[in-house]
């Protein structure tokens, strides 16, 4: 047997500091909140202490953002704003290795993903939106679109840097100022991004980054002087936010959970469909809101596909996120691990057939072996609830109509995948699927030019592309 020797990326590259402070009005300052300790989910060791914001810090940050909006950023010509954003894009690219290693340390995702997906895509988002800053008149959103003002943004822990980029880049390009709260378990890369923003000489107050738990987020979205709230995270919290901003005149975009169907027809390129299914559910340990967590496969190829899928999944290498050969890293937190385990046992209890990859798992840290449930029916919790982990539920269908009906039979509607060699069927399906993003013969591909967002309980509003600009403009 050929064992790959460990090929770890050096953790020194992350330039990890013992403590991090929040970024307010252009300065790094101690927060008034109780400091939090951020943990490496692969080893359970404490990485750093991070100061958090108190209620008055949130107020100071919003005031700083308002000042920056009124005096500088809101009235700056787009071409000038673009220069700052291009600078951020370049600096993210220049510090990509540092950011990638830090992201893998803090989040637990494999280095090959942070290196090849998260960081390059984050940089690409800044580049793309910098280009829009002086062309907003031509975005097709009407004449003379105006910025909204101060945006309060709350982001999740699954793509900490990339989500910060998705939120900051369009807001800044459109002339808004920002107060952003990174997730409690993954604040580090957002604070390095703050360092980049400081070095890029962005005027003080244009971007403020306040780490903290949910209470800081609630304080931020509830602040009376916010004009816009953007949230990515759970549907549960999304609903609370929508209640709290109702009637306030704040604009809102929500990007929430999902339970995407990956639909495989019998004429699909099976080996590539297997790759797409694997990428759809095991990318980022399944911590992806648009993960293809429900596999709908045509009955005539179900057995063959499932055999191929098991063989392929057994080759996934689960372990040290910093090892360049790791395919599946660590679950972000013990809390999430518990949640995944609970849903998996519900699947067993409800009678689905469980298959677990025989891969070895590390002794410590939060790891979960890739799991596939066959014989799942629509009524089971594992077919309805978002698991947000490396767990795939397999259902079958007989006809295209049945595939559409089952795929749409969810309160969510973020993404879907279609696998078939027939172009006409791709278009027919895409017309009928209630999902914001439909991938054809691929899955989990992201690009700043493509709008992303959902239906129903997956939220509303779009991020990326021309459509994404509308969320930050008064049109």
């Amino acid at each position, binding site marked *: 047997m050929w*064992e790959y*020797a460990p*090929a770890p990326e050096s953790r020194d590259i992350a330039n990890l500091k013992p403590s991090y402070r929040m970024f307010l009005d252009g300065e790094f300052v101690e927060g008034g909140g109780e400091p939090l300790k951020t943990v490496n989910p692969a080893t359970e060791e404490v990485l750093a202490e991070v100061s958090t914001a108190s209620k008055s810090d949130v107020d100071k940050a919003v005031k700083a953002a308002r000042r920056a909006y009124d005096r500088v950023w809101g009235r700056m010509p787009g071409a000038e704003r673009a220069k700052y954003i291009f600078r951020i894009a370049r600096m993210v690219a220049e510090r990509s290795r540092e950011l990638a290693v830090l992201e893998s340390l803090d989040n637990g995702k494999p280095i090959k993903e942070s290196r090849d997906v998260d960081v390059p895509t984050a940089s690409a988002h800044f580049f793309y939106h910098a280009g829009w800053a002086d062309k907003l008149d031509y975005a097709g959103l009407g004449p003379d679109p105006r910025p909204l003002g101060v945006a309060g943004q709350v982001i999740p822990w699954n793509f900490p840097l990339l989500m910060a980029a998705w939120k900051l880049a369009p807001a800044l390009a459109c002339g808004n100022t920002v107060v952003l709260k990174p997730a409690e378990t993954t604040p580090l890369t957002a604070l390095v991004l703050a360092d980049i923003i400081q070095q890029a000489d962005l005027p003080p107050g244009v971007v403020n980054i306040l780490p903290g738990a949910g209470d800081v987020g609630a304080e931020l979205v509830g602040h009376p002087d916010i004009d816009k709230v953007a949230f990515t995270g759970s549907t549960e919290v999304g609903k609370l936010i929508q209640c709290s901003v109702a009637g306030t005149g704040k604009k809102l975009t929500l990007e929430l959970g999902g339970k995407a169907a990956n639909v495989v027809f019998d004429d699909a*390129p099976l*080996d*590539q469909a297997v790759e797409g299914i694997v990428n759809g559910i095991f990318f980022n340990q399944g911590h992806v809101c648009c993960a293809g967590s429900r596999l709908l496969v045509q009955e005539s190829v179900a057995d063959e596909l499932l055999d191929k899928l098991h063989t392929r999944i057994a080759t996934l290498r689960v372990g040290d996120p910093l090892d360049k050969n790791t395919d599946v890293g660590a679950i972000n937190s013990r809390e999430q691990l518990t949640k995944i385990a609970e849903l998996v046992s519900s699947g067993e209890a409800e009678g689905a057939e469980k298959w677990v990859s025989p891969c070895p798992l590390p002794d410590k840290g939060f790891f979960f072996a890739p799991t596939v449930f066959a014989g799942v029916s629509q009524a089971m919790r594992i077919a309805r609830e978002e698991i947000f982990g490396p767990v795939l539920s397999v259902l079958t269908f007989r006809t295209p109509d049945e595939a559409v009906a089952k795929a749409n039979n969810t309160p969510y509607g973020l993404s879907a995948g279609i696998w078939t060699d027939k172009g006409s069927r791709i278009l027919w399906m895409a017309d009928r699927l209630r999902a914001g993003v439909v991938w054809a013969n*691929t899955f989990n591909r992201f690009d700043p030019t493509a709008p992303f967002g959902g239906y129903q309980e997956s939220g509303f509003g779009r991020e990326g592309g021309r459509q994404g600009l509308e969320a930050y403009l008064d049109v």
Partner: protein
Amino acid sequence: MAAPSPANTGLPPALADATRDETSLRRFLHGLPGVDQVGVEQRAAGLATRSIKKAAKLWAIDTAIGMVDLTTLEGADTAGKVRSLCAKGRRPDPERPEVPRVAAICVYPDMVTTAVEALGDSGIHVASVATAFPSGRSSMPVKIADTELAVAAGADEVDMVIDRGAFLSGRYGRVFDEIVTIKHACGDAHLKVILETGELATYDNVRRASWLAMLAGADFIKTSTGKVSPAATLPVTHVMLQAVRDWHTATGTRVGVKPAGGIRTTKDAIRYLVAVHEVAGPEWLNPDLFRFGASSLLNDLLMQRRAQLDGHYSGPDYVTVD
């Protein structure tokens, strides 16, 4: 199309049925799942980022050396050239006798006698190209005679080319019959079937040609002659590795894969081995089931092997040029 040959009588009914007549064969080959170009290229590129270091790298280098079909297929080949290549194959790094020997020496049919003599009882196989290599454009009697010449001279492996013209015009039965006939002419010699994937153009065709060759009794499927560009590529090899894996699932027998042409560096070779390991499976990491058709690759493997052991790079003058 000829009646089913001895080569495929042991097949499961569904596959034996596929070779019953031209129509069945066509239906079977066109019923194989398609290959998505974007998907297979993305997967190949993804696997190519595996980082193979230290002991794993040294193991890969030694394994790759033992899988090399050291090849010379030039109009300018002479007995002297072939003899020196054989000497190189027996002892790739003269200062380090522990370096494994190569798998085979691959020559034109008229050089087989020379190679057999030079290799003696070293255990290195002698592979001969045949069937009007590289174009395959000749009559069947000539192709059979070409094969018989090689086998009579002592070749224990035959690398035949398929009739790409027949394949591309949809005459699958003709290609099938040719392979069956040549397999018969090979006797006990192992048959490698060269698909010349650079001329087949699509991955769907590569998969169909792979299955066609396996149905007709190929012991190995080989990408290229090395005379057509592009020769071996990673995605093409992925498709062929998937085909031999699926063949094993269907029949229980393992067919080998040989990428040939364009693989020149250790880094490339390791990428192929990773694909073998993770696409076909670890059982294929064996010279009986995987070969590299190459000439300059061997010296790069030797230089990298030295660098791994000595901790520094030497230079091209520290390995022999043959």
